[in-house]
């Protein structure tokens, strides 16, 4: 069909689209009442999350639904929404009816709290500051580690190209920046040393992808760069996917990646789903939940744990507070307009 001949086709198309939309809507609406038997009450939760957790929560949801039905006799079906963490946060603020949020960074949940939808004490609702699992920033290198990259100082060598997404648009990128910055401080360097190191790193970053998965594609599919900085859980997916072409290197120390979770108070109270929503996030701390979390290469949190969880290599970690003071400071001084990251890039004959 071309746009050139005006005919009755557009009308037919519109009519068809409307019909399809209507049928989808009606089946969508009739489903909840159709699936539950008359005796089993059923509720629906919406978990608004970020991109890399898709596979993790698919497994968590199945296990939790079984658990909740056995425990409380209520059927729960959990809907998922995945996109970049920052835009998910804005979507919830703007009215996406999330029951729980499981986002990448503290500022993304804090922004929802500032809007009033999440109570300001959200960090004290669950153990470990509402962080049920964490990850670390690690290196992914080509098979056999041809450039001999073992730790952060190796990234400072001439000719080593680094792949990491833009910290201004990506949570993964922010953590990689903080990892590089903090690695210098942790080794006894000054803020100036850190600034110099990070600047040299980004000068040898040939591409600034806007998101984590795009950076993964740049490194693994397009074969650009010598080392890819990313979360441990993402690194495992990337290496598994590469069928032996890539491998993980653990630096001596790295930043701890702390993705927080929260119940969206404003929404659960209106929808009367608080009990299930809290149980859902609490499930992440249960032995069964932890096993699933670990299976997806996130490090589950355990009270009074010494050393890494079983199956995870030892790595010295520092947190945001150490690397940048606080998230607010990091957002302003490092990633904000005119901050440390922006200062790396100056107008320079702007040619290609």
């Amino acid at each position, binding site marked *: *069909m*071309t*746009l*050139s*001949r005006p005919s009755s086709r557009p009308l037919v198309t519109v009519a068809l689209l409307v019909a399809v939309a209507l049928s989808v809507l009606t089946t969508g609406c009739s489903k909840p009442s159709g699936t539950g038997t008359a005796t089993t009450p059923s509720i629906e939760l919406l978990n608004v999350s970020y991109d890399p957790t898709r596979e993790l929560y698919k497994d968590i949801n199945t296990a939790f639904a079984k658990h909740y039905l056995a425990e409380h006799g209520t059927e729960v079906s959990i809907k998922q929404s995945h996109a970049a963490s*920052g*835009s998910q946060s*804005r979507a919830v603020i703007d009215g996406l009816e999330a029951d729980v949020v499981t986002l990448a960074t503290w*500022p993304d949940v804090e*922004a929802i709290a500032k809007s009033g939808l999440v109570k300001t004490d959200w960090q004290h609702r669950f153990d470990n500051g509402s962080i049920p699992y964490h990850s670390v920033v690690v290196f992914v290198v080509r098979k056999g580690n041809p450039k001999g990259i073992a730790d952060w100082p190796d990234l400072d060598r001439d000719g080593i190209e680094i792949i990491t997404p*833009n910290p*201004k*648009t990506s949570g993964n990128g922010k953590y990689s920046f903080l990892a590089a910055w903090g690695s210098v401080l942790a080794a006894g360097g000054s803020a100036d040393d850190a600034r110099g190191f990070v600047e040299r790193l980004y000068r040898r970053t*040939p*591409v*600034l*992808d*806007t998101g984590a998965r*795009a950076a993964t*594609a*740049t490194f693994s*599919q*397009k*074969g*650009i760069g010598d080392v890819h900085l990313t979360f441990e859980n993402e690194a495992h997916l990337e290496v598994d996917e590469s069928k032996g072409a890539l491998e993980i290197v653990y630096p001596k120390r790295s930043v701890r990646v702390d993705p927080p979770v929260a119940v969206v108070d404003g929404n659960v109270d209106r929808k009367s789903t608080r009990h299930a929503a809290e149980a859902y996030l609490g499930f992440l701390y249960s032995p069964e939940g932890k096993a699933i979390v670990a299976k997806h290469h996130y490090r589950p949190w355990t009270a009074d744990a010494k050393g890494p969880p079983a199956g995870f290599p030892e790595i010295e970690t520092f947190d945001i507070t150490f690397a940048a003071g606080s998230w607010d400071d990091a*957002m302003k001084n490092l*990633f*904000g*307009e005119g901050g440390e990251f*922006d200062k790396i*890039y*100056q*107008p*320079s004959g*702007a*040619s*290609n």
Partner: protein
Amino acid sequence: MNKNPPTSIPTRRARQRTVLPGFGLSAAITSLMIVGLVVIPLAVLILRAASLGPAGFLAAAWTPRARAAYAVSLGASLAAAIISSLLGLLVAWVLVRLEFPGRRILDALVDVPLALPTAVAGLVYSTLYVEKGWLGQILVPVGIKGAYSRLGIVLVLVFVSLPFAIRVVQPVIESLDKDTEEAARLLGASKAQTFLRVVLPGILPAVVTGFALALARALGEYGSVVFISGNMPFKTEIAPVLIVSRLEEFAYAEATAIAVVLLGMSLSMLIVVNVLQQRLARNAQ
């Protein structure tokens, strides 16, 4: 038009009424749609940006980095729109005037870029043109960098804007009277003369409209460009990337300020092109 006898006006009005039944209702729905879908969102955009005040607006939207990004956006979009309209004219001509096997398939393929998520296009293009990609293996050694360069941005922008350039010109070529061309040839005009003096004036307004649509489409494109440009500040960073950066900081007003500049650029280009197009259309008559 002015020479029409006044008596002809009532009959024309009467005919219009029968052609468009329920004029009041249609007009109401149309204006409601335009207000709801275009005017209100744009008004909100401008109000948000205006909340910064003049100094704040300039500080957000007129930094050296933002200016560099506008230049990249505008330059690449102009280049892409020029290529698209020339290529679009050629493709439309071939599709209308030439009969060859597979013509209908080709015709259907033209719309594919409209249906494909543009991020997919960006990813595919960059994978092809990087040093180790299928095309990059051949092109990079001879100095053609089709990925992570401004050339790459132009490539994907041509991809996303080409359908507009083709589909606008196509019906006009279809409606061209072949007899006029034959008459011109019979009267002794050369092939070139026939094309330049007889064919081109008729389709040029449509080509210009296609150019405008392609340009507007290219200026706002984000999904495909971010995968192929490399997003290097001052080099290949486009303005929409800056908007997303500011949104990540929850700096809505600053983000909309950049959007307003982009919108202003887009609108003024469209106005210029519209004036040009009207002049051409008048000359063609």
